[in-house]
């Protein structure tokens, strides 16, 4: 593995410029100042929508409707939070999101690790067919309607299965895991097999314990995907108590756009929604934002694993 560690990659880049620095030309000095300014601007533009939504979530309706809320809350209050959090449906949907995420991630991990392990064995007969079966689905899939018909036909509508099964294997994650398994030293498994362990024993007692890092990364990839997903639930669930929180939020937003799109730009319902929407968005995104700084490097290393020369 050449660049499995993103920090190391970063360090290399950071280490190079000084060796290249003979004497900066006037023009390059100017460029460096401009560059830092531009990148600070990028940071500001990326963060602004989040800051804005947090400010709105603590603001009064009146301040938002009169267009006073940008970076700082106006008419500070936590009433909206109390309002949203007192909606029992919100909590039911939030719990659904947690349940769907946990179950879906567990299923996805079982299917992905077992398949990846099998196709990482270079002398397995039929290996290239198995890889082909998976990779082809990256470039061609059945499409919305046949999938919809299928899920209905399987009787999965309004059940957990419609959410957790149809996307249980991400081919990208599969290929990352396969690359990881391929890079494990073959000697370990050979030694284990001489000691009398079967393939199952090797897989569970040797390979999986050695793969904790990649497993953690994959769990994160899947968990974030399922936490954020909404369309599957939107399509296959039509009872509000089954919705994940993303669909709860979507319906709220859709309600607001519909009323403005009817031409009623001063519609009260839409304005109240702006206030509540902000709180719902903050509460939905909060777990991801809180965990993000700690988890970010694992995500990056996952992508790096995929680009590693095997």
């Amino acid at each position: 593995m050449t660049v499995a560690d993103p920090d190391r990659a970063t360090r290399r880049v950071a280490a190079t410029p000084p060796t290249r620095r003979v004497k900066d030309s006037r023009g390059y000095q100017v460029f460096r100042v401009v560059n830092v300014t531009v990148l600070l601007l990028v940071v500001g533009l990326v963060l602004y929508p989040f800051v804005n939504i947090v400010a709105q979530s603590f603001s009064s309706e009146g301040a938002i409707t009169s267009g006073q809320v940008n970076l700082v809350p106006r008419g500070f209050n936590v009433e909206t939070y109390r309002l949203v959090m007192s909606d029992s449906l919100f909590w039911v949907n939030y719990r659904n999101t947690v349940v769907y995420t946990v179950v879906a991630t567990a299923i996805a991990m079982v299917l992905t690790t077992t398949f990846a392990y099998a196709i990482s064995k270079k002398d397995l007969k039929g290996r290239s067919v198995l890889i082909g079966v998976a990779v082809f689905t990256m470039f061609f899939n059945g499409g919305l309607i046949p999938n919809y018909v299928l899920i209905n036909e399987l009787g999965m509508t309004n059940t957990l299965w419609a959410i957790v099964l149809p996307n249980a294997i991400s081919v990208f994650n599969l290929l990352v895991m396969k690359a990881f398994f391929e890079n494990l030293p073959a000697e370990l498994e050979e030694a284990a097999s001489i000691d009398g362990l079967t393939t199952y024993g090797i897989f569970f007692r040797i390979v999986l314990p050695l793969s904790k890092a990649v497993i953690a990364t994959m769990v994160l990839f899947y968990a974030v995907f399922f936490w954020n997903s909404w369309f599957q639930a939107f399509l296959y669930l039509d009872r509000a108590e089954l919705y994940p929180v993303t669909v709860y939020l979507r319906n709220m937003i859709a309600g607001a756009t519909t009323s403005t799109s009817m031409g009623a730009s001063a519609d009260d319902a839409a304005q109240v929604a702006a206030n509540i929407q902000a709180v719902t968005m903050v509460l939905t995104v909060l777990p991801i934002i809180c965990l993000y700084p700690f988890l970010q490097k694992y995500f990056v290393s996952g992508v790096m694993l995929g680009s590693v020369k095997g």
Partner: protein
Amino acid sequence: MSALSSSGGASGSTGSALGGASEAAAVALEEQTPVRRPPRRTWRSALKRDWRLYSLVLLPLLFFAVFRYLPMLGNVIAFRRFRPGGSIFGDEWVGLRYFELFVNDPLFWNVFKNTLVLGALTLVVVFPMPIVLALLLNELRSKRFKRFVQTVSYLPHFISIVIVAGLVLQLTSAQGTINQLVQLFGGDSIPFMQQAEWFRTVYITSEVWQTVGWGTILYLAALTQVDENLYEAARIDGANRWKQTWHVTLPGIRPTMITLLVLNIGTFMAVGFEKILLLYNPLVYPTADVISTYLYRVGILSSNFSYAAAIGLFEAVIGLTLILSANAISRRAVGTSLW
């Protein structure tokens, strides 16, 4: 970029959340894994020796069969009249009837045009942005500042598309920040999401916001691989910093660029389905409605399954053709290929 859901969202594959960079990585990995030819073995002896390995494959294969390949076969309803409650493969053969229907549907050609325009704008505007950002990041000397910019710019990638749509709608609303700025400079408040001529701008801007940071990862990795001696040689030849970038850095990351470009072309037809579905409303249909959203309304909301399946199949076949041709061209022209 939801590359994996190349024909709409229902089975939008899990990987689509990971963005284009990741898929390129996955494919690059395929390309880079040398397949050592094992000694030929009969199926009987292979099964006898490796039956435990094969048993691990059964559940995943069942997944692919049911949730990936069965829907592909299900596309046969594009050629058959489908009756809800009847067979999932349709009841009666009608040939190309549904294809004729949509080819003669003026609404279809409008959404086809919108798909091409948004797809092209994505390629021209959204695709180059991560390259620029990666080059700028690469010029930073402060490792800490660089890491800070990277960490912040990756963030939108991890946010649910529903939140992104919510943020966009808030910012562009009548009392939102953008309209406050417009008014500050003496303009009149613009109802962005009610005017069709603004939709493309809003969509593309939000795409850049959401994808630019994460898109830099593979370019930054590629940048670390550029041979340091080439810079040395360029400097000795009197190349300034800009010329070094142009003649050394950019050629150095060209394989990565081409791979990502080919993958982007493959997703051309599936442009932004979920995001558009969340953002649009009837007032902006003239520019916002794309093939995938149109077939969603026709198929799911109006229950014209066969008609919508015909459109979906058409879209998926174009998508597959695009990626195959882009890959073939890139292999011929620059020797970079996905597989």
